[in-house]
């Protein structure tokens, strides 16, 4: 059974996705590659703000490209409803670290409807849930990027079905829940500590040293939240994954995304 693509995936959309992901990777991982002579190293605490303004722009360009490249009314409706479900379940999680139940919706949506749709779903769901809870802040662009990747990746995994698929999604969910926490830490690492502390990054230092400092920072801040989130994602995927995936796939079939629209003259209708 081949995968449904709710967004037509042309070479254009794919290359735009790759380029935007490249910009996103730089926005997250720049502390590891920055040269000590660069402007960004002098303004390490300001750089996250710069990226927080740059990322919405590139995500916006990608979204405009996706919708120009073929997002019809069915795609818009499906995107809206799945984003609404993800938004609605977000407050069910526990407080500030409560992104957990949302991840399952994003995973399954990206899985059933393809990588490009997944990216749009992930970032849109983060955006709408931030608007609804009035949580628009410098963290939002990074969350949109990371959640987009998470849902996109679920659509890129090999197309297998049955128990193997659920097992694969559980493993993927655990890895990405942990990775999400690590990435979000990475995004505010430079400004949370300020330069010069024992856990801050050192521009131009060898990769292994900065990785070690980053890991220590994770350990000191959020690992206590990341691990329960990964466990919850896994448990929810096992419990609800099969039925929910079936439900989304059934709706996708009914929506008939890949069927071309043709206008044919009605035979025997009217008087002409």
């Amino acid at each position, binding site marked *: 059974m081949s995968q449904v693509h709710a967004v037509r995936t042309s070479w254009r959309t794919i290359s735009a996705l790759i380029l935007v992901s490249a910009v996103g990777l730089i926005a997250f991982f720049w502390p590891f590659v920055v*040269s000590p002579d660069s402007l960004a190293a002098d303004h390490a605490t300001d750089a996250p703000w710069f990226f927080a303004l740059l990322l919405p722009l590139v995500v916006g360009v990608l979204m405009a490209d996706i919708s120009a490249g073929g997002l019809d009314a069915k795609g818009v409706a499906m995107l809206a409803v799945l984003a*609404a479900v993800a938004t*609605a379940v977000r*407050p069910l999680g526990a407080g500030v670290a409560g992104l957990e139940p949302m991840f399952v919706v994003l995973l399954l949506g990206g899985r059933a409807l393809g990588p490009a749709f997944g990216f749009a779903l992930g970032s849109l769901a983060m955006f709408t849930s931030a608007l609804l809870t*009035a949580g628009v*802040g410098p963290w939002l662009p990074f969350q949109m990027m990371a959640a987009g990747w998470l849902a996109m990746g679920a659509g890129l995994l090999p197309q297998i079905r049955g128990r193997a698929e659920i097992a694969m999604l559980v493993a993927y969910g655990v890895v990405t829940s942990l990775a999400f926490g690590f990435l979000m830490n990475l995004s505010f690492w430079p400004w949370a500590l300020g330069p010069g*502390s024992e856990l801050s990054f050192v521009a131009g230092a060898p990769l292994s040293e900065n990785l070690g400092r980053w890991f220590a920072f994770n350990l000191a801040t959020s690992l206590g939240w990341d691990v329960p989130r990964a466990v919850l994602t896994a448990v929810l995927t096992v419990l609800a994954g099969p039925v929910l995936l079936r439900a989304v796939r059934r*709706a996708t079939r009914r929506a008939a995304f890949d069927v071309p629209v043709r206008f044919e003259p009605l035979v025997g209708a009217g008087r002409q």
Partner: protein
Amino acid sequence: MSTRWLHPGAWWLWALGLGAAATRTANPLLLGLIVGVVTLVVSARRPQAQWAGAFTVFVRLGLIVIVIRIVFAMLFGVRVGTDLLFTLPSATLPSWMAGVTFGGPVTVEMLVIAAIQGAQLATLLICVGAANSLASPVRLLKALPAGLYHVGVAAVVALSLAPRIMINVRRVMRARRLRGRSTRGLRAAAESAVPVLESSLDDAINLAAAMDTRGYGRMTAAQPAERALQAGLVLVGLTGIALGLFAALGAASWGWLLLVIGLLMATGGIVIAGRRVPRTRYRPDPWNWPETITAGSGILAALAVLAGSTGTISLPLTWPALPPLAVLAILLAAAPALTTPPPPLPWRTA
């Protein structure tokens, strides 16, 4: 003054201007002044809506940031200053964690610097929180460029559907309770997810049919040349942004130039994509004098602080001076509390 909604972009520019001012000064008096001005405007112009409660959440978040910053400074911070307070037990982590040392002597200077740097971040968060509670999110979505029209529609639909889905969850839970089944635990949550998702997906299909018949999600056919131009602008622009960033991080100054060119090209791509969506806006938010004054006062505060204050803390610590220009500009940023029209009352919200 008659009531109307101020353009959300004006509130965001005002708040971001004050926030930028906060990142440019390490003067605790100026930071306190910014917080005071922001609080004044929020208390004067906050609408009666659910999202308007965000301000207090962001204030609390700001306080947490200050506390975290101080704790981290005591544990991992740079050991500066001479005025010793106490000494924490010290240890060094193994070398695979970069051989980080924590603990050690704690001085007054360390704590003051950490508190001021924390207060900078907290002030910025409070400014963002002010924008969150002053600017209506749905009106912000209406101001999206035309190229993002479809995604904007999806966002508006998602925002209006999400509360209904929460009500659906409660309904399904009540049905479970009436049937004598448990409503707690993960299993109940997973099982109630199915009817909720099924009914939402049915909604999606109906919504799609309704939107199709009313012509939503359509766009005019593109000329091949125009389509190629848009694709070219977007792809080349994004490549320029990525390469420019990478070069700028490597300290090549032409990287910034490449970045700016890439940004301009990519934005041009959005504008051209928007030309294929011929839409008029229903009752667009106007941009009049109150908007200009609001946005201008925020930007003015940022410029004045940039000119009149310094972002570094020098040792030994001294009592901060008050630069008159920056103080005046920040006080002017309180003007929106009087010059903007008050927001409509809840039963007249649109």
